[in-house]
């Protein structure tokens, strides 16, 4: 990280210090309600166990990953569009001695920071449920951050391209929501029909869930761990390249 990136990140932190309370709901409240409602409520009526783990514990890795995805996407849509088109924040930043790379990386770092907080909070809650078997569960933290980057970077590129916020509703409805419902958060992908199983397996979310689950519950991943991680890294890298190109085009004429 260059100094420029750190300065941009610091700017976001200063803003966050004032309004962090308002963010508690999405980063913390909703996943915990889901854990109780689906995990405990519906879990009671299951006829079987997945991976020989009680259901309320089984869905913890999926919830952590899905929350990371939702946070990463929601913090990379409206805020990015607004800073390009409405408030002009990026343009202001670029007129300081900062490079496009700093503007982009600083904002991405802040999105990851938000994900990090919620991930740690959820792990703490999971620990009180006894859903954490060993300290190796902490491996989930860097994996969650990588997963978040795999979603945030391409979404930055998307948000820097579209001109209207209506596309965000479409992104959420047609991509993000189906993923959070079918990519292995609430039940194993194996329960899906053949055709959908493939679709679920190639989603970055399911790769993230698999690795986090193997770290927390010591179950084997469908592909070797490095393949899953490499796949997430590829999404992050491609997203970065695209986002950087879009940002450069919009900020430097």
């Amino acid at each position: 990280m260059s100094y420029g990136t750190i300065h941009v990140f610091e700017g976001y932190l200063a803003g966050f210090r004032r309004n962090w309370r308002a963010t508690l709901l999405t980063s913390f409240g909703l996943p915990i309600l889901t854990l109780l409602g689906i995990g405990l409520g519906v879990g009671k009526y299951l006829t079987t166990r997945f991976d020989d783990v009680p259901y309320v514990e089984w869905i913890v890795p999926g919830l952590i990953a899905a929350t990371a995805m939702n946070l990463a996407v929601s913090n990379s849509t409206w805020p990015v569009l607004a800073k390009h088109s409405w408030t002009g924040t990026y343009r202001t930043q670029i007129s300081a001695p900062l490079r496009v790379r700093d503007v982009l990386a600083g904002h991405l770092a802040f999105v990851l920071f938000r994900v990090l907080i919620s991930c740690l909070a959820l792990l703490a809650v999971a620990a009180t449920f006894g859903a954490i078997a060993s300290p190796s569960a902490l491996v989930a933290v860097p994996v969650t951050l990588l997963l978040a980057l795999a979603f945030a970077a391409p979404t930055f590129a998307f948000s820097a391209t579209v001109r209207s916020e209506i596309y965000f509703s479409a992104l959420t409805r047609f991509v993000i929501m189906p993923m959070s419902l079918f990519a292995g958060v609430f039940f194993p992908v194996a329960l899906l029909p053949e055709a959908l199983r493939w679709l679920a397996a190639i989603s970055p979310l399911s790769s993230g869930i698999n690795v986090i689950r193997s770290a927390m519950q010591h179950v084997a991943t469908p592909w070797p761990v490095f393949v899953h991680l490499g796949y997430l890294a590829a999404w992050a890298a491609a997203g970065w390249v695209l986002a950087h190109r879009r940002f450069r085009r919009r900020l430097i004429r």
Partner: protein
Amino acid sequence: MTLRDLAVVRRLRTTGTLSTLVARRNVAALGTGAWLVLLTGFLEPLLYLLSIGVGLGAVIHRIPVAPGLSVDYPAFVAPAMLASYAMSSALAETTFVFVGRLRYLRVYDAILSTPVRPIEIALGELGWATVRVGAYAVGFLAIVVAMGDTTPLLALAALPAVLLSAVAFGCLGILAATLVRDWRDFDAMALVQFAMFMFAATFSPIDAYPAVLRWLAQITPLYQAVTLTRAVTTNTVGWSQLINVGYLLALTAAGLWLASSRIGRLLCP
């Protein structure tokens, strides 16, 4: 019929026409992209039904809905998703969107410079929200029938239950919208709404809850809407459904009465 009666009838007819105009403004203001998002509105409850209901439902016991009768999990969840959707759709239209038009777009200030009165704005928005929910409900119920989770006749009978729920939540929403102070209140509302979505007998029966939680779940409007809709689609309607209907009607009346006085004070100070 006296002259006075005639005047009342005429006034009511005008109210109807003007409310319709408020709703028609919403249609006229939609862009192309908004239409796409609007048309696929029933995708959300459907995806929940397919994921939790059918996907996870494959490994869930049959759930008792009446003494001696239990149903497959998808048939248990489907009416709950529909009622929840009536809630979230009606609330979104009457809170988030309503406040946007009230405070930021200033649409109502413009409308009130015409002969339209505050109550007609409330009724117009309410009608628009209800029509939307009704259209989605038809699409959603058709799919539930196709999946074999209820019969066509019961699905048809469920429609009024869903519409009543939508109207009740719509009235509650308009009232809430007039009380909202800033965006943080929306966050609190979203949390309450999501808590109801998780615990108001939607995904699992509330029998297993501790007594206090069970009682808390039962007094939520979503519990009433879900119980009513489920009783219809599973063909288990009994006297207790009168309580559900009465509750929702009372909510409608109280919401509308309080909201129209608040709205008048907000818009015509």
